[in-house]
């Protein structure tokens, strides 16, 4: 069960450091080839501890034809609608948390989706808990609109969510999700949120060219779009690891 998985603590790509070049080389020309154009560019390291194998060891040349390593998430889904904004994900008053403090970062899970209006009878996190029993969130259009607070993806990840499957994302939330590595922001080709119910068991499988969401309760499957521009950066292990790989910032010694 997803709930039994350890929470992502801090994303550290120490494994990446040795592979980057030792000197600072300023960037001056296009060196990136991204396959698609769905998203803004994302960053940071933390996807590595969440099940993706970083591939810095391979080579420093562009390997944009490769995509995410195969990853699977399995668990209960929590279903929401359109325009779930960051205030519903985590009310601003709870954003006083200092996410570099590990204890606060763990506790922030208690606030995940706590801003949802009370007509949402089933709570994502039960009162008094810091973990959710739901590991996959399913949403509609424009998931994560509103504030740029990184606390939004961080609190969902801290509560134990592994992925969001939505029809579309607000720009900053998408980028922050990848940047923090707290969760996978996956796009579905159809409105999965209309066909799944909270509490149903689902599996998300990520492959080379996209993904698949299987609802085991209904037996239906849904295609997920490829992660797009985020791919190469995720593969590197995040924006810091990626920049080190490119020789843009020096390695930590």
């Amino acid at each position, binding site marked *: 069960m997803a709930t039994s998985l350890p929470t992502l603590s801090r994303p550290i790509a120490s494994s990446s450091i040795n592979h980057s070049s030792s000197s600072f080389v300023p960037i001056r020309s296009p060196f990136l080839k991204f396959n698609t154009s769905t*998203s803004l*560019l994302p960053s940071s390291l933390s996807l590595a501890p969440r099940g993706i194998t970083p591939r810095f060891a391979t080579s420093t040349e562009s390997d944009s034809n490769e995509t995410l390593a195969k990853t699977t998430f399995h668990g209960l889904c929590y279903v929401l609608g359109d325009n779930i904004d960051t205030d519903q994900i985590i009310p*601003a*008053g709870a954003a006083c948390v200092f996410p*570099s403090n590990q204890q606060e970062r763990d506790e922030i899970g208690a606030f995940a989706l706590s801003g949802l209006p009370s007509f949402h009878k089933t709570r994502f996190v039960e009162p008094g808990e810091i973990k959710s029993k739901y590991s996959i969130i399913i949403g509609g259009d424009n998931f994560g609109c509103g504030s740029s607070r*990184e606390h939004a993806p961080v609190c969902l990840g801290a509560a134990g969510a592994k992925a969001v499957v939505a029809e579309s994302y607000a720009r900053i939330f998408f980028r*922050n999700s990848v940047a923090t590595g707290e969760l996978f922001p996956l796009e579905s080709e159809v409105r999965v949120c209309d066909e799944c119910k909270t509490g149903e068991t689902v599996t998300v499988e990520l492959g080379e060219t996209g993904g698949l969401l299987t609802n085991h309760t209904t037996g239906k499957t849904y295609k997920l779009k490829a992660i797009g521009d985020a791919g190469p950066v995720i593969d590197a292990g995040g924006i810091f690891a990626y920049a080190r790989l490119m020789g843009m910032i020096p390695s930590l010694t």
Partner: protein
Amino acid sequence: MASSVISSSPFVCKSSSKNDLGFSKSSQISIHRCQKKSISRKIVSVMAPQRSPSTTGSVKTGMTMTEKILARAAEKSQAVPGDNIWVNVDVLMTHDVCGPGAFGIFKREFGEKAKVWDPEKIVVIPDHYIFTADKRANRNVDIMREHCREQNIKYFYDITDLGDFRANPDYKGVCHVALAQEGHCRPGEVLLGTDSHTCTAGAFGQFATGIGNTDAGFVLGTGKILLKVPPTMRFILDGEMPSFLQAKDLILQIIGEISVAGATYKTMEFSGTTVESLTMEERMTLCNMVVEAGGKNGVIPPDATTLNYVENRTSVPFEPVYSDGNASFVSEYRFDVSKLEPVVAKPHSPDNRALARECKDVKIDRVYIGSCTGGKTEDFMAAAKLFAASGKKVKVPTFLVPATQKVWMDVYALPVPGSGGKTCAQIFEEAGCDTPTSPSCGACLGGPADTYARLNEPQVCVSTTNRNFPGRMGHKEGQIYLASPYTAAASALTGYVTDPREFLQ
């Protein structure tokens, strides 16, 4: 229907010749500035349009303002929508909510002894949770103070005496307004901030957008960010602005038209005769809410109004850029502003547009005037003007939160035109409003439970702020009607959502 008065057919287009004519005057200003400062800037391969491209052939592929700014910041000759490029950052802004996290990530990644890339290009503005007893909120300001001391950050607008904000001469207040007032917003530059409303600064003809802590941590160490060049949507606003209308009405009209996701990942460029006639503060309102349409940034071509504002506040050289005549826009919307009416955004979405007069039966419990969107000097002047014109008293509690210390002083010092020399503060007092409070983000985003004017009950509020999602101002069942300062003031006088025309002539 509100939509009946506008024509808005998105279509791919090339820039009209009218645009070229309209901007020619400002282009001359830019020539002057380019020459003045060419020595101090990095040599870059993108030129500001010093002459019309058609006469020189110097620009083979037309670019929009945003594309030009990003190309120059990337030290490239061209930037095409969809390109992922590393961009040099001119200014990074952070505040008390996200700053501690951003600096924490910076330290984690670059080492405990690491130094920021440029202590003069980082602006740290405590503004969100200031006047509160919340220990974590106070602690966050302390963390920022420590980082700023250690890193020798030049622009840290600190507050230590929470009892009286006036005892803190460095304290400003709401970051987006303070950035402009302190001269950190400059045409042609790249401004990033750990706040979604950083897009406000697009009013100055610069690229400005919000980022998260992790990206900010990266910028702190490198001064660079990886960005995807956004395609540009163009909004041409023409016609004389009716006296009862404000920029807030324009942006709510536009968001209602394209929806809260209508500009996702895109630039919203505003031009036209109406935009040219707007003051800087009104232009800031327009750009402030592009994020409510999902926009990555908003931008307005700099002109004499812009340069006059900026040159009075900074000695840093800058270089305006303008969209080429043959630039490509993904869509174009035209509005005849002279035909628009005051609008509101009903609960619970900024695109839930309605005419103010259509909501006249909506009983309200309170009115809130404040925030980066609606808490600037001119916003309070507008509200005061309407109160003075009516000679009436408010029927519901009316809360006033000036965005910055400067705005607060203006509220207490500037005479309101047509009121016989009274200040905003005098008029507000006579109208029975709450006394203008200490400048900060206040209850716009709810905040800690003891935040002034926070919506702690499931009440109905007319607010000049920017978001009305469930729980935004505090209570999850609260109902927020987003409106212009005129409409907010008119509603305060009647206790119902009210079209300001009832009090203005």
